[in-house]
């Protein structure tokens, strides 16, 4: 407790240095937090699309139900499919209504006639997709074929880009934060040289002398994390309607976002903000640990 009081006194007596350290920590944690959220969201989006049928075959309006069933049978006969689901025009309308239930304008404009019937095909192995594709191409009445593989690959490249760019930036800023805290704590140790000398001579334990400096670095991280949490929280609140519309269809995200007072949401928020605070505390502590190890040798 006395170490915490001393650390707090150190911070209050040199507010500009404390502000520099806290601002750096804040920027690092803000960026790391945002990229972590983006990366997590893209992971769940990816998982969602990976779980969807691999090929969707849309048929022309004039295509008869018999032709569609013929193609279904041909595909089943190859032995290379796990499942084939036939979606009629009416079922397609029901799905559309379900997905856009919050937008009456979109519902008014659409009828079953303008929606195509489709087959959703999943292969036993992604390598069989080209074989199935050949069968589909020979069939008449097909309007469009959507390969989920293309969507997934695009998503993977986006997810990787987010992870790579975000990870690199957050990593660079983390190193920067550690160096800044290290420099500031090093300066403080130099300024308090006489106090350290006196504490040593009156019999203070090494831990008693080091602890306030270590805690000071950790506190910079905690304050930085606190400000970053407020900003991220405010951003999330501001973007909530957009996020709910855009990502709400992904079950893993939608279930959390849909009920901001639910246990799932509160646990997710606690883990995220707790993680941010822990990361900040650890980053600051590492910086001060290096400074203490370097400048407080006894």
């Amino acid at each position: 407790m006395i170490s915490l009081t001393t650390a707090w006194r150190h911070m209050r007596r040199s507010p500009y240095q404390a502000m520099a350290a806290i601002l750096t920590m804040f920027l690092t944690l803000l960026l790391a937090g945002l990229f972590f959220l983006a990366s997590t969201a893209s992971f769940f989006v990816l998982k969602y699309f990976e779980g969807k049928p691999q090929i969707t075959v849309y048929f022309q309006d004039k295509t008869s139900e018999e032709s569609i069933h013929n193609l279904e049978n041909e595909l089943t006969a190859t032995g290379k499919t796990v499942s084939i689901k036939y979606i009629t025009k009416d079922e397609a309308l029901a799905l559309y209504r379900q997905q856009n239930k919050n937008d009456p304008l979109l519902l008014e404009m659409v009828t079953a006639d303008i929606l195509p019937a489709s087959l959703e095909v999943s292969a036993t192995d992604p390598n069989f997709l080209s074989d199935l594709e050949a069968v589909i191409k020979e069939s008449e009445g097909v309007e469009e074929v959507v390969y989920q593989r293309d969507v997934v690959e695009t998503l993977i490249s986006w997810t990787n880009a987010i992870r790579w760019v975000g990870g690199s930036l957050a990593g660079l800023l983390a190193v920067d934060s550690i160096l800044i805290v290290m420099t500031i704590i090093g300066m403080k140790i130099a300024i308090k040289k006489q106090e350290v000398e006196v504490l040593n001579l009156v019999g203070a334990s090494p831990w008693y002398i080091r602890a306030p400096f270590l805690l000071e670095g950790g506190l910079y991280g905690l304050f930085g994390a606190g400000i970053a949490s407020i900003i991220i929280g405010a951003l999330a609140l501001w973007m909530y309607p957009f996020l709910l519309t855009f990502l709400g269809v992904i079950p893993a995200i939608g279930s959390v976002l849909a009920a901001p007072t639910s246990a799932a949401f509160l646990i997710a928020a606690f883990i995220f903000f707790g993680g941010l605070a822990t990361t900040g505390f650890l980053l600051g502590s590492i910086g001060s640990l290096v400074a203490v190890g370097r400048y407080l040798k006894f």
Partner: protein
Amino acid sequence: MISFDRVTKLYGETHALSQVSVTIKDGEFVFLIGPSGAGKTTFLKLLTREMVPTEGDIMLDDWKINTLPDSSIHLLRRRVGVVFQDFKLLSDRTVFENVALALEIIGKREPEITRDVDKVLELVGLENKKYLFPQQLSAGEMQRTSIARTIVGGPKVLLADEPTGNLDPETSWEILDILQEINDIGTTIIMATHNASIVNDLKKRTITLEHGEIVSDEARGRYHIHKKEHRTHKL
């Protein structure tokens, strides 16, 4: 009891102390005299483990100071307090806070700290100045604060490295009176000094060091003025 057994301390090729053997009993008041560079400060620093001897053993009761693990040095320094010529007070703390520091580090609670600090401030005659900062005190008062900080934790031994070096004669005697009072309650005192009148008047045990060697150890010693210092005095 403190004992030095054939202790040598080298700074490079220079002998700061050379084969020094001496025993100081509990409760003694010992003056350590000698010209500058004779090894007085080295002697004291070896006792607080600010330095380790090149050779020999230093004992404080059953503690072998020279082989004490680093993790226990702070425990030694709670038993061996030091008073310096330059006081070493913290300028951003009041007299009370400077003295309380020695109790805070051992985890004493606030009521105990207040009680003990008030007691020693009364002993050194600073009870009315406890809320002043060091820069608001005279040199003598600063030294008294330094002594209060050293004794508040109840050390077994008090080392004083020229505690009167920055003080006028009258104030020096006030400090000596306080040290005598501390000695009277059983604390061993080893005081390095250049102050001949104090040594000659108090007639305590006096160890004289020259070139790192003990040249005399007298029970009721006198200050032997070194030739070089005598010449300087004439000039």
